[in-house]
C-alpha cells in the first residue's frame, strides 16, 4: 500500500515514458486509459489486490506481458546467486570466525580479524570489478559476465556463477565472520564448554561438538537478515555481472514507472522476508530444543 501511495506521487508517468518524447497529451491520456491509470488509486489498488487473491500478479503496463512468470524467473536467478554467495560466505565465515574467536589473543586470530575488517570495508561491486579484472580479463579463466539458466547449459551456468557469487560471498562472508566470531566467543565463555573440556575433550573438538550448534543461533539470525536484504541488495553485483535478477527488474520497473510491476516485486520481497523469518524460526527450533516445548 505504501508503495502504491508512493508511486502515485512520483513524477513521471508510465504512459508518457512508453510514448517517449513528442507524445501529445491526448495520446498519453489515451494510453493511460488503456493502462487503467485513469481510474482512482483505491480502485487500482483493489483491482490489484483482487488479482493477487486469484494468484494473478497482473500485467505490466509497459511490456504487456504477465508479470508473475517474469518476477519468479528473476527471483529464481537472484535466489541462486544469493544462496551460492551465502554458501561461500558460510564456508569462509564459520572456520575463519571460529579460529578468530578461539585464537583471539594470538597473531593468527588478530590477523584474520584485521582481514575480515578490510573485507567488510570493500564495497561488493568493487570486489566484483577487481575479480573480473583479474580472473576474466587478465587471466581469461572465467567469463566476465552473463547468465545461463542451469537447465540450458550447466557447465556454462557454473562458470558464470563463480565470480558474482564470489564477489558477493567474500563481502558477506567478511560480515558474517564477525558475527561468527562474536557468537563463538560467547559460547567459549559458557559453562557447558568447560564441562565438555572437563570431560576430556580437547578445545577444538569441544567447540565443534558443543559450541557450534549453540553459536549457530545468532548466526542464523544474521544469515536470515542478509538473505532478505540481498534479494534487492544484490542488484549492484547483478549490474556489474549483467545478471537478470530481481533487483534489476525492480530498477527497470521504477524507471518505467511500471507501478504494477514494482508493487509485485515489493510484494514478493515482503513474502520472502516473512518466509525467511519463518525459516529462521524453524531453524531456531531445530537448533535449540529449549524452544520446542513453547516455554522459554
Amino acid at each position, binding site marked *: 500500500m505504501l508503495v502504491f501511495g508512493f508511486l502515485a506521487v512520483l513524477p513521471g508517468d508510465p504512459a508518457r515514458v512508453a510514448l517517449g518524447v513528442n507524445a501529445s497529451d491526448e495520446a498519453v491520456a489515451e494510453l493511460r486509459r488503456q493502462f487503467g491509470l485513469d481510474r482512482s488509486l483505491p480502485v487500482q489498488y483493489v483491482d490489484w489486490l483482487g488479482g493477487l487473491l486469484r494468484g494473478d500478479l497482473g500485467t505490466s503496463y509497459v511490456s504487456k506481458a504477465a508479470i508473475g512468470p517474469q518476477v519468479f524467473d528473476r527471483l529464481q536467478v537472484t535466489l541462486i546467486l544469493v544462496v551460492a554467495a551465502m554458501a561461500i560466505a558460510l564456508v569462509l565465515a564459520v572456520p575463519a570466525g571460529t579460529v578468530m574467536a578461539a585464537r583471539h589473543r594470538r597473531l593468527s586470530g588478530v590477523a584474520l580479524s584485521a582481514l575480515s575488517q578490510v573485507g567488510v570495508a570493500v564495497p561488493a561491486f568493487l570486489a566484483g570489478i577487481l575479480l573480473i579484472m583479474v580472473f576474466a580479463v587478465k587471466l581469461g579463466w572465467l567469463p566476465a559476465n552473463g547468465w545461463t539458466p542451469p537447465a540450458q547449459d550447466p557447465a556454462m551456468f557454473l562458470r558464470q556463477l563463480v565470480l558474482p557469487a564470489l564477489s558477493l560471498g567474500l563481502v558477506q562472508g567478511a560480515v558474517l565472520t564477525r558475527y561468527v566470531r562474536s557468537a563463538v566467543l560467547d559460547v567459549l565463555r559458557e559453562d557447558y564448554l568447560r564441562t565438555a573440556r572437563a570431560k576430556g575433550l580437547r578445545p577444538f573438538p569441544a567447540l565443534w561438538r558443543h559450541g557450534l550448534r549453540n553459536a549457530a543461533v545468532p548466526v542464523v539470525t544474521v544469515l536470515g537478515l542478509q538473505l532478505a536484504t540481498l534479494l534487492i541488495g544484490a542488484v549492484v553485483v547483478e*549490474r556489474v555481472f*549483467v545478471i537478470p535478477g530481481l533487483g534489476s527488474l525492480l530498477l527497470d520497473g521504477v524507471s518505467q514507472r511500471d507501478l504494477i510491476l514494482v508493487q509485485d516485486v515489493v510484494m514478493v520481497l515482503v513474502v520472502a522476508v516473512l518466509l525467511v523469518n519463518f525459516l529462521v524460526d524453524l531453524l531456531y527450533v531445530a537448533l535449540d530444543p529449549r524452544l520446542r516445548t513453547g516455554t522459554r
Partner: protein
Amino acid sequence: MKSYTTRAVAFVASAALLALTACSAGSSTSGGPSAGGDQSLSLGLVAEPASLDFTTTDGAAIPQALLGNVYESLVKQDESGKIVPALAKSWTVSPDRKTYTFDLVDNAKFSNDKPFTAADAVFSINRVKTAWTTSLKAAMDVVQEAKALSPTQLQVTLTKPSNGWLFRMTTRIGAMFSETGVSALATEPIGTGPYKFSKWNRGDSIVLQRNDAYWGTKPYFQQITLKYFKDPTALNNALLTGTINVITTVQAPEALTQFTSNEKYQVIEGTTNGEVLLSFNNSKPVFRDIRTRQAIRQAIDHKALLDTCFAGRGKLIGSMVPPTDPWYEDLTGVAPYDLAKAKSLLQASGAAGATLRLRLPTLPYATSCGQVVKSQLEQAGLKVQIDQLEFPAAWLTTVLKNADYDMSIIAHVEPRDLGSVFSPTYYTRYNDPELQQLLAAADAGDEKAQLDNMRKAGRRLSEQAASDWLFLLPNLIVADKNLTGLPQNAITENFDLSRLARS
C-alpha cells in the same frame, strides 16, 4: 509546421544510445552462409526495449533490433541516405506529387507463413492511424487513402505533396505487418525480414533466427543474439572475454584504447544523427534575448568539451543537421569560441550574473558534459546550477512535458528532426515563423527546393542560436577483426544484421 513531416523525435532511450544503422535491409551484400564455421553471433547493445511493440512504445531500442531484420518496409535508405527499393520493387510518383504507386515483390512471406500482399500494406498503413499510439504516427496524417490495385500493386494518395512522407516510410512507420499477425506485437513480432524473432530473455537478450524462407538474399549468420548491457564496463568486458563479438555502441569512449591497441579488434568510427543539444528554454525571459543565447554558444569551447567529456570522439556541428543529410553544411564557424565576446554579449543583454538551472537527465554523457558546460559558462560570468533528473521518467515529465528548466543536455537521435525539435510546442519552446515557412516549403517543394530550404533552415537555427549543439554523437563500433558488413555511419534507426558476415 503541420506540413513538416518530421513529427517525431526519438530520444536516446538510455545511456548514450547512438542511433545505429546501416543501410537498408536485405539483399545487398556479401555471401550466404559459409559451409561450416561459426554460425552464430552475439551483439552487445545498450538499451533493452521494455516491449517489442514499437507501435505503442517509443524509444530507439525496438526498431534498432527489429526493423529491417524482422520487419521490412516498402522502401529503405541505402548507405548514402538515398531511398531505394525494399518490399516495393519500384514505385512511381504522379506529376502532382500526391499519388504514389508501388510494385511489390511477389515472393515475400511473413514468418506466420502468410504471403505478403498489397492488402497487408494497406492494412499496415491504415493501422498507423488507428492503432498506433506513439507520436510518430503523425507522419501518416498526410495519407488520404491507401488501396490495393492488385495483390502486388499498392497506391497511396496524399492530401498534399510531401517529401517527408516517403522518407518516413523508410522508418518504423513504414514497417509492414501481417493482417493476421498483430495480436501479440509486444511479445511476438511477425514480419517478412531476413531474421525471425526467436526468444526474448527479459533483462538479458533477444535471440533472432535466420529466416530460411526469406525472399531475398539469405543472411550469413544462422543465429544472432542481441545482448543488453546497462553497464558500459560490463559491455567492454564481455567483448574482451569473448562473450559477445560486437559492441554496437561504445558508451565509454575513454575505454576505447584497450581495443585500438589490440590486434583482435576493429574499431569503426563514423557519424550518426544524434545531435547532442545544450537546449535552451526559449520561453524564459533570459533566453528571449538572442545575445544571451549567442553568448552561451560562444562561451563554450566545443573542442575542449568534446575532448573532455567524449574523449574527442564525435564531430563538432554548428546546427541541427548531421553531415549525412544532403543539405549539410559546416556551420561551426557561426558561433566560434570567444570568451571576451561572450562576456560582452552577456553584459549587453543584462544576463551576466544570472543563475541558470541546467537540468540534466541521468545519462552518462549528459552528466559529463554538464559539468564542463557549467565550468565554461561560469567563466563567462553566468551562474549554473546543476540538477539531475532521473531519466527517462522524471526528465520527460519535468523538462520535456512541463518545460520546467532553463537549459538541458540531451541527444536527439531521430533523423531529420530539426523541425520537430525547434517548435513552439516542444520543450525548446522555440517560436520562429520564418523557420516554419522554410520547413513547409522544403516539404512541399521538389528536390532542389527541398535542398535549398532545408539548408536555409539549418543556417537560420544556427544564427538565431536556438540552442547550442555540443557535438554529434559518433558511431563507435568495436568488433572482432574478421567481421564484415558493419555500418560506417549510423543514419537509420535500425541495426542491419543481414549484411554481417565473417571474412
